[in-house]
């Protein structure tokens, strides 16, 4: 096994161009598991953990650009205000050891429908930045992930960063697992309120081949808010609307039965998470007005 350890992004991209078969490794919390399970034996490994450019994040007019190598622990510590939904999702990932190593770049690289980093990115319509020696392209995350554990990365490309809007309202992330920590999502739900645009953005995780946006449910709630003038009055949404939102989110789920849970349970739980998350986010919005 050849082990490449470039010291800069430039050299990393050159290495990838020269060795398109090389498998990138960031935190290694997915890749090493695969190797231990004997599910793949890369000829060449490209270690990105020493590439400084990947471990940086910066503000870009209303957006945040986060390097693919920023760990969950840092997202929690440094981006809790700018990207609260992603920070909440990061808190649900694995254990302290995993959060110290694991990265959202790796989560994107794996493209698992259960990846906890993905629903917040989907909800906020993040763009994934893909770089090669030939240049950089930006792809909406929902186009980047093409199926379960499949994505649009080309052999000569690396994920260099993702870019998403700074939060302008409350965000939530909730995840159901059978154990109270260190668990792969049975299903999950990410939500972002964008009061300035009158938008509600939501995404289901781990209940379909990819994360799933819920446009009908979102439009429904937006309608409820608009109709009641709730964005302005910060009045209550009402139980019926919350429930209806949960049901419409349920309708978008496309789960399967597996060892972690039945499809029926996932559908049920998604509805509960959606209803509760919207309630919490809305409560926070209302309190924000006090």
């Amino acid at each position, binding site marked *: 096994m*050849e*082990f*490449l*350890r470039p010291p800069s992004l430039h050299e990393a991209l050159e290495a990838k161009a020269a060795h398109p078969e090389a498998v990138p490794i960031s935190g290694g919390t997915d890749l090493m*598991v695969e190797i*231990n*399970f*004997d599910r793949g034996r890369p000829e060449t490994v490209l270690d990105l953990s020493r590439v400084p450019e990947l471990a940086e994040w910066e503000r870009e007019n209303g957006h945040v650009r986060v390097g693919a190598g920023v760990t969950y622990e840092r997202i929690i510590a440094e981006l809790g205000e700018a990207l609260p939904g992603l920070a*909440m999702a990061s*808190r*649900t990932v694995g*254990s302290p050891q995993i959060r110290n190593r694991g990265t959202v770049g790796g989560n994107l690289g794996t493209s698992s429908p259960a990846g906890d980093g993905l629903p917040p990115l989907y909800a906020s319509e993040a763009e994934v930045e893909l770089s090669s020696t030939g240049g950089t392209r930006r792809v909406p995350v929902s186009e980047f992930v093409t199926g379960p554990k499949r994505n649009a990365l080309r052999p000569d490309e690396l994920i260099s960063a993702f870019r998403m809007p700074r939060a302008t309202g409350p965000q*939530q*992330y*909730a*995840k*159901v*697992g*059978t*154990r*109270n*920590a*260190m*668990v*792969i999502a*049975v299903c999950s739900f990410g939500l972002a309120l964008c009061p300035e645009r009158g938008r509600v953005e939501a995404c289901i995780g781990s209940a379909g081949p990819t994360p799933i946006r819920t446009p*009908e449910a979102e*439009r*429904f709630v*937006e*309608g*409820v808010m*608009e*109709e009641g003038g709730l964005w302005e009055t910060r009045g209550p949404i009402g139980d*019926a*609307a919350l*429930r*209806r939102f949960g*049901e*419409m989110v*349920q*309708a978008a*789920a496309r*789960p399967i*039965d597996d*060892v*972690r*849970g*039945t*499809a*029926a*349970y996932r*559908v*049920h*739980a998604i*509805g*509960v*998470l959606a209803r*509760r998350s919207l309630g*919490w986010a809305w409560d926070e919005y209302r309190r924000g007005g006090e």
Partner: protein
Amino acid sequence: MTRAQTTPTPTRVGPGPTTFSPGGIGESVRRPDGVPKVTGEFEFSSDMRLDGMLWGATLRSPHPSARIWSMDLSRAEAMPGVRAVLTHEDVPGRKVYGMETPDQPVLAWDRVRYQGEPVALVAADHPETAKRALGSIRVDYEVLDVVSSAEEALAEGAPELHPSGNLLRHVRIRHGDAEAAEARAEVVVRGEYEIGMQDQAFLGPESGLAVPDGRGGVDLYVATQWLHVDQDQLAESLGLPHDMVRLTLSGVGGAFGGREDLSMQVHACMLALHTERPVKIVYDREESFYGHVHRHPCKMRYEHGATRSGELVYVRASLVLDGGAYASSSTAVVANAARFACGPYRVPNAVLDAYVAYTNNPPCGAMRGFGAVQTCFGYESQMDKLAEKLGMDPIELRLRNAMKEGTRLPTGQKIEGPAPVAELLEKLREMPLPEGPGGGTRDLRELPGGVSNTTHGEGVVRGVGYAVGFKNVGFSEGFDDYSTARVRLSVTDDGPLVEVHTAAAEVGQGLVTVEAQIARTELGVEKVSVLPADTRVGSSGSSSASRQTYMTGGAVKLACEAIRRRLFETVAERHGEDPEGLALENGSVVSDGRFVVALDEILGAEPIEETVVHRHVETFPLDEDGQGDADVTYAFSAHRAVVDVDVELGLVRVVELATAQDVGKALNPQAVEGQIEGGTAQGLGLALLEEIQVRDGRVLNASFTDYLLPTILDMPPVRTEILELADPGAPYGLRGVGEPPNISTPPAVVAALRDATGRELPRMPVRPEALVGIADGPPRRRPQPGSAGYGTLGSLEERRDQ
């Protein structure tokens, strides 16, 4: 590019003696391996290395049931770095093994009966090479029908796994006259219960190092539970006399019953003898799931009859256990399930039938609790059901029927010595309950779902449940159960030293500490050295059945007493003292507190050594009606579980587990608490999480990604009350400690879940699906928007359109 580093490997292996100054019995003594384990310095069996060592690997069947038509080894044999490729043809001796019934192939010949059954072996210079060589072996399988459950196995016309059929054992117990008693029963409750397949999930996977001695014999360093039963089976299958197969215990990372059967032992020795090189085999976690037996899944049908005042009149029970493909210890497990099927209660009449069958599922055998875990879930669920039907407090009902000294079990055996079932329940009842789920903002970590942010208090309901359980200590049904200890008292430059040598396996339970405490107490010598366990001394029996402190602790005690007698005879002779009045204190012989002579002086250059065998009272097999004094003694424990359930999501946070247990005598209180907390955690795991999921003979979750063990956020604090009611027949009056907590925890947790949800919950582990009332199984029709009565609301578009 970086190069693989080569670190020098040693030329000798094997653990050394553990020398320390323990406290006496009754004191909390820190285990000497505690700090090295926490700091990573402890050598587990998987850490051993030796110069010129090869790596062994095992080819396993991907099919749960298949015929093997042919095997092509040529590509593996031709691979550079491969030193041996072996099949059943290379097994030098008996081709089958098994502790009770040798029915399990060392390597399969023409048929495989479970997924993961060993088929061929490879030894290579590097573990990677060995793995690749396995991948190049071609096996021509013809896939056969799978017998996927015990019921299926026992049905008419089922394919037979072994020549004498699929029924491995039926234990039948007839006690009193149940038919006549039925008339007296004013209230009857029936229930069906089921328990899934739990794994021991010890943290150190199977591993060992076999070293050929150059004269046709072999030394095996291995993590196991019972060196001598391994040695017996190794000698048979290697075709060698016992003295040419020597075993030494190496660092064990937990056992819980899962190391009682052989795993890699014969394989590593075969490869070592064949290649004349040391061979190490280490399973990874996935292979470990296929490499050892599991807890028996069990289906139970119960009927309890009682008077209106809550007195049990009769119990009928039918238990069906899935033994998997090979016998392992199934025949003993099923007998335990039957003997303890009525629980620690006075049951005057009982009709009990327990069956264990061969199936194409993973073999099942010993696991902490050994048959008593399954039935405790059954009878305690029934007791709650009965209490509810009678409108009685569940503790009251249990107290009314609690077994006590002198009660006869359904086997006719009379309970000798204290049976503090009522006391344990009273203790629990007296313990204050933890605070209720208060309002306000609570730490997410204290809520169901934990850090996953699923509830901020919504849907959370508190539940409380109780259970009490018991089981036998030591081996039953007439087995000649004994332990051997060799103790040597000598004088070194640093003063007197006691050396203790037994073959008993320290599997984490704290045996080394207890052996040393006993020697210290009995001989009054500060420095004790516990030698590595090996087969150079007689058998100690297994570190199982909660028996090792009782049996091997007892043997050490007897050996010390023998040494003391010899010493006192010498002192009496030389100093004209009455031997009866002598005692040992702080390295001296004293008489009524008066110094007589220092040990250094009296022993001089003549150490005293004694080897003693300790046997417990004789036990007897059961007759056709299941009658007989099959057991040595019993251990009892009770649990109270307090849970918070998110009844909408079916997620659970166990708030507290409280327990009361009679341990007879706590030799090392800290270790006793450790055993109780560990057993309680393993019980919580069974109640909520831990299950090997098997479909059509295939394991679906052979990894810790999907076989979930409780984390620190799942396991609450344990409130422990330890009773010390001496067992009259036992050394120091002690009882076994390790298993009871694993028995009474699961039903207590499930009872609390029932209390919170009002659901029946007949199956363990209880999945979120069951807690919210969604059946496991294929998805039903999805709920449609509007189905919950909000149809009139419609979407905004729809409303605008109207």
